[in-house]
């Protein structure tokens, strides 16, 4: 009886943790996020099969754009990724589409396309090797990597 209570309490806690890290199928946590500079996250996340930027993603990209404007010599590679729940070839195209969504947004904030290149990895380079919705949400991403 006691054990059962403990287990269910645990389960609720895990569920809440997951809930708070995924909103509308998009990862909102910070586990895997690195920083290009103080307060400038390096990545944005996407919903399954989507390449639409969320409000949070746009905020991240505006910070990246501001940082790039302050550092005019820096060039970047936008690495687009998909989760493992798709065919390899479609995921390569999807990763490219995601990275370009981020690139387009940086360009509307004044960053020259000559400073940005795009590289899709499809599902080839997950950051999280888990086979569950939370892991997949961390893997659906576009990561801005300093190239020089």
């Amino acid at each position: 009886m006691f054990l059962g209570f403990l287990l269910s309490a645990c389960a609720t806690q895990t569920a809440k943790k997951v809930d708070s890290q995924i909103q509308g199928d998009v990862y909102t946590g910070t586990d895997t996020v690195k920083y290009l500079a103080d307060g400038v996250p390096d990545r944005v996340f996407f919903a399954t099969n989507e390449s639409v930027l969320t409000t949070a993603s746009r905020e991240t990209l505006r910070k990246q754009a501001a940082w790039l404007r302050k550092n005019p010599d820096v060039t970047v590679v936008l690495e687009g990724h998909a989760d493992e729940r798709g065919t390899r070839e479609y995921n390569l195209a999807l990763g490219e589409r995601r990275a370009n969504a981020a690139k387009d947004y940086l360009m509307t904030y004044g960053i020259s396309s000559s400073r940005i290149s795009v590289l899709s990895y499809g599902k080839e380079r997950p950051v999280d090797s888990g086979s569950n919705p939370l892991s997949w949400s961390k893997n659906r991403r576009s990561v801005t990597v300093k190239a020089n």
Partner: protein
Amino acid sequence: MKKNKLLFIIFLILYPFKALALIEVDITRGNLSPLPLAVSSLSSSENDRETLRKELDIKDIGLEISKIVENNLKKSGLFNPLNKDAFLQKPDIAHLKPRFEDWALIKAQALITGKVNLQDEKLRVEFRLWDVLAGKEMLAIAFTTVPKNWRRVGHIISDKVYERLTGEKGYFDTRIIYVSEKGPKTQRIKRLAIMDQDGFNTKYLTLGNELVLTPRFNPTNQMVTYLSYFKNLPRVYLLDIETGMQEVVGDFPGMTFAPRFSPNGKKIIMSFAMDGNSDIYTMDLENRIVERITNHPSIDTSPSYSPNGKYIAFNSDRSGYQQIYVMKSDGTKVKRISFGKGLYGTPVWSPRGDLIAFTKLHKGKFYIGVMRTDGKGERLLTENYYQEAPSWSPNGRVLIFYRETKTDSKGEGFSAKLWSIDLTGYNERLVDTETDASDPSWSSLLSN
């Protein structure tokens, strides 16, 4: 009383389950009723055996070749090679004149006999296929080859026997090119690898310094096209596996991927991704002319020609989600053909021309299936956590694909393996590979 009731319920539940399970076994085995046959060891002289033992490091070449034949025929699911311990007649005598009553006694309906000897440093092979019940020779073939090709001798015999008994070309003297994988899931090291269809003679064609994906054979020769991330620029490459020479296909300012050859081997069809949009292009390998085939703001990828070269099946999300489309090879008359529930990808046209194999994702499960070229008659052959990328055997009877496992709560236990399944949906088998493997492509028959 209570106990009795419980037993009764269990009995009721178990009974139909058991009956179902039995029917299933009946269908897989009974329906195909594999033909019992005897593969006698190929006879050879003691002298030749000794020479070949030194040269090839095999004890008894005739026995080894007969084992290759047995293994091939058994894995086809259509034949049941009988245990050699029960054979009454010696290989050399059986090859000259089988005593059919002896073979009928062990219930063999067909018998394969043969002889192998060295002639001018070459392997001379002859074999015969006998109808045991009719007491007749059905096939007699002789050929010569270099000793190091000795495994291919077994495959060629298998193909000839398969063809004589089924009326269709075999698929044993073939190779599989695939991606060999190792390392953790987040940092997989991938190399191009090639092996005989039965898992022997594995060779690694790249070192693993860069990511390589989706190798595919030219149906007319031993050229291969694949995707390499050489210098972090994902591009389609052309590789000659005999010479090791390779080159980039075309001069595109972005990622090219999902390559395949046209049926005559003269063109490569692939996707080119630019500014978030992927479209389908071809490049003529003789005059290097690049042609754009689709022009649509959606993802268009995984193109595959029909065997007559007149049509192209491909994958597009122009309807909002991944579906399968067919168009004429000039890009006109685009028509969606997949209308079932779920997402559809990786269409691959059968070498017979009548079917398209595909990957389907529905309710969190992945399926390998086939449909007719108008999209009707969808048949799902196998369901799993993750599997995709079917490739046809050259006779269009078997599909090879890869399957990945779900990881545990710690993110461990990942593996990728090759599997094959008959078009009938039966005879699903793990394909032996030295390492983890994915993206298989089946070659044409090496000999005819």
